[in-house]
């Protein structure tokens, strides 16, 4: 079943001069999958998310979320998704629990007290949950807003830069919680620049550039297709001597070198195959101008 469909979305901002933010973007996102939107600043990711969620109208194209047209009926479609923007709106003079009360009432949802308690604990917010949010740091505010997203009943969750300002421990918690959401078949659409995070949660990646989707693929297939393997051999002539490292782009070259070294009784320290990271692949793809 398809959770989100976008067909030929085009958007020109009526500024002077006009800015063409989307140039015919189409995508199908299936129920239970996590899709990450990657790309440079100004590539159209946030505009795409704003159109998907009904905040902005496209000049042409269609969007449906759980079979509901979110352009024509944004409020009706809003029953099926929750959206975390880059700068979430929070009541700064109220506590974390009070903010949670507000948002779940605003969304017309039952208050998930137990679920929230567990998430606040995992995010290390529980001891400060009674304090006004005006005393929270940027990262804590992000965790607060993210907590509500992770506790919502809505089947589709859309996150714009969810790990912005988070420390490494919190990012690990977010990864674990998103993986738990995947287990209960939630659909996630995430725009992020944090490639390591994306590698841990995404099933598919969509690469945005200049208002278009360059590629949309299974993340593992995408990596294997674009990755340039590197073979690294480290060896030493002497037990306590200097370690020499050689890099090869071909496995046969490496094997040949290994045979030579072994036949000369040289101690091999490491012989490993490395692949490009997602960050490197995306950078090269964008640099190639495709």
């Amino acid at each position, binding site marked *: 079943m398809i959770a989100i469909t976008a067909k030929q979305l085009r958007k020109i901002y009526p500024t002077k001069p006009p800015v063409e*933010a989307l140039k015919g973007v189409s995508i199908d996102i299936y129920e239970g999958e996590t899709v990450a939107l990657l790309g440079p600043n100004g590539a159209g990711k946030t505009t795409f998310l704003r159109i998907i969620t009904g*905040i902005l*109208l496209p000049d042409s194209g269609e969007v449906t979320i759980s079979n509901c047209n979110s352009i024509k009926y944004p*409020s009706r479609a*809003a029953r099926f998704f929750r*959206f975390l*923007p880059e700068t979430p709106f929070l009541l700064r003079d*109220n506590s974390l629990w009070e903010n949670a009360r507000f948002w779940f*009432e605003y969304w017309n949802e039952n208050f998930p007290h137990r679920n929230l308690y567990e998430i606040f604990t995992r995010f290390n917010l529980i001891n400060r949950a009674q304090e006004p949010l005006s005393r929270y740091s940027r990262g804590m505010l992000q965790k607060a807003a993210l907590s509500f997203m992770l506790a919502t009943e809505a089947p589709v969750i859309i996150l714009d830069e969810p790990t912005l300002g988070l420390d490494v421990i919190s990012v690990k918690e977010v990864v674990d919680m998103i993986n738990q959401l995947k287990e209960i078949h939630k659909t996630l659409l995430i725009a992020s620049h944090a490639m390591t995070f994306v590698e841990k949660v995404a099933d598919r990646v969509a690469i945005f550039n200049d208002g278009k989707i360059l590629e949309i693929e299974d993340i593992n297939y995408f990596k294997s297709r674009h990755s340039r393997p590197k073979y690294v051999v480290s060896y030493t002539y002497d037990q306590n001597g200097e370690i020499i490292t050689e890099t090869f782009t071909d496995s046969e070259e490496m094997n040949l070198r290994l045979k030579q070294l072994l036949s000369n009784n040289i101690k091999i320290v490491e012989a490993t195959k490395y692949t490009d990271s997602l960050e490197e692949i995306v950078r090269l793809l964008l640099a190639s101008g495709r």
Partner: protein
Amino acid sequence: MKLYLLVVYLQFKGMVRKARYGLQFLLLPLMTISIFLTAYFTVRALGGTIHELFFPFLVFVLSASAINVPMQGGNQLFSEPTTAHLWITPRGIPALLTYFFGVQTIYFSTLFISLIIAYFLVHPQFYFLNSVLGLCLLVLWCIGLICVGFGFGIRFLFAFHLAQLIFLGFYFFILILPLTGKFVFSFVIPPVGIISVFKNEGNVLKHFFITLTGILVYNFLGFLFVKWSYKEYRIGKGVNRV
């Protein structure tokens, strides 16, 4: 209604929490009382009475705040597009207006109570029925103004400055209104009718119903204006940026 009460409660709690750390809680009422008393003694020195001053002042303070604060709030909220997700709710536009009305309730109540305190400090005449009817009209009028203010805030980049201009200009506007009993004014300019009802001028019930009709028309237009502003914002013509 539950959302409205929750917002009022959270706002009140937020204000009380702030007040623990300073005098902010008292600043608004003190400012209102002091402005009122200054104006009162000025009017008296010029030979005027409390009745000529109080009701226009009441209508001014609440009307100007009702249009001013949502205009600034809407402008701030929508000039930072990433926070505009407040619109995206299964409850639609009425939920956002409920939220803003809830936020305004505490603000209006504080202003209103401050004015009543100021009013009784200078011993005026008091008409119970007129006050209740006048207050109903004033609250309904404020709902329409919140819509208009919010619509302006969403749509126009200069709304923040316009809000300040309105706040300064509104009082003079109300003071120069034609305040004597022509019912057509009550319909076209609701503050005229509201002030007449408060002051027990002419046929009170007739003023009340004519003003009410005028207010309902304005409120309907105000709601359409918010919807139009939001539609324009969604097209990308408002304060929204790429």
